[in-house]
């Protein structure tokens, strides 16, 4: 009896693993900057995934149905940081919490490292905005470099060895107010 229920739990976990593994492989960005807009952009819902590009002197975020543009010269600060997030998140992540024998807790041990890009910019009325993006590891620093080279300002200078995000000194990771 116990063996049977354990087998059922294992099948359940494998099922969840299998169903989430395929989409995550399919979601790998082919080119450009596939990002998730955590919060901040006007008219864009929180945690919306889309493409972040630099075009015609503006920072453009395009997702299905929405396209938001921020002039680069209005960007007052660009900060990159490292973070991590659950591999199984969203609806599936919530469902895993109901997995038997602590399966949900076990699955929450699987985490993916990500880069965080935070910008501050002014709108046409002078109002201060902030926006947070998450992107795959190692993508934020090159993007920041491009952004700064096109006229954006930053309070934390870009590191020369920005190739690896993990090697940044602690002082550079935290913004001094």
């Amino acid at each position, binding site marked *: 009896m116990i063996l049977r229920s354990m087998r059922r739990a294992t099948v359940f976990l494998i099922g969840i693993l299998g169903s989430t593994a395929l989409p995550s492989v399919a979601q790998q960005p082919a080119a450009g900057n596939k990002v998730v807009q955590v919060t901040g952009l006007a008219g864009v819902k929180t945690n919306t995934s889309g493409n972040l590009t630099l075009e015609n002197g503006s920072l453009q975020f395009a997702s299905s149905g929405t396209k938001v543009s921020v002039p680069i010269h209005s960007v007052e600060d660009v900060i990159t940081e490292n973070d991590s997030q659950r591999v199984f998140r969203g609806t599936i992540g919530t469902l895993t919490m109901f997995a038997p024998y602590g399966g949900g807790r076990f699955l929450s041990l699987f*985490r993916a490292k990500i880069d965080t890009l935070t910008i501050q910019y002014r709108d046409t009325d002078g109002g201060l905005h902030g*926006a947070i993006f998450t992107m795959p590891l190692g993508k934020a620093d090159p993007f920041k470099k491009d952004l700064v080279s096109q006229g954006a300002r930053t309070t934390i200078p870009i590191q020369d060895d920005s190739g690896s995000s993990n090697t940044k000194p602690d002082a550079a990771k935290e913004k001094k107010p």
Partner: protein
Amino acid sequence: MKRALYATVFAVLLLSAHAAPPRLPAQAAPPPAKKKASAIQVLMITSDEIKLPAEFQISLYENLIQQLEKQGGFLHVYREGDRNADGAADLVVLHSTVRGFKKGSEMARNVTTVSGKTSIDVHCQFTDKDGKSVLERDLNGKVQFFGGNLRATLDFARKAAKLAHDNFAASPAS
């Protein structure tokens, strides 16, 4: 004999529980200032003593503005530096300073349930247009069980928006 002793102890406990005067919420905190304002301006969150990650600073600011707009009661919610705020007659300005920050761990929360709490302590000061303080309060934002660390900023924003609405909103909540 023993039964009488137990009964006495029980009665004393019961009496002491009821004898303490109930604490009214009005006695715990001073009565809030009732100044009506049609507009509020939110300044960027500052952290003089605490090193706050930029994403938390931005998330606090943006969530605060979102929640103030969602809560309703103000005709306008202005951002820091917005030139339109200069023309608003009855404006309150919200200054927020982070006084404490503990970045927990989402993984620890998920695995252990009891540890890994993220919490942010913010001192909120509402001033009028001339900079005179009209209300000051310490608020806390935390995430204890579910969600990422940034969810603590949403918790704080909800509390701050409610405080602003209860004390300054000119019109009822939408």
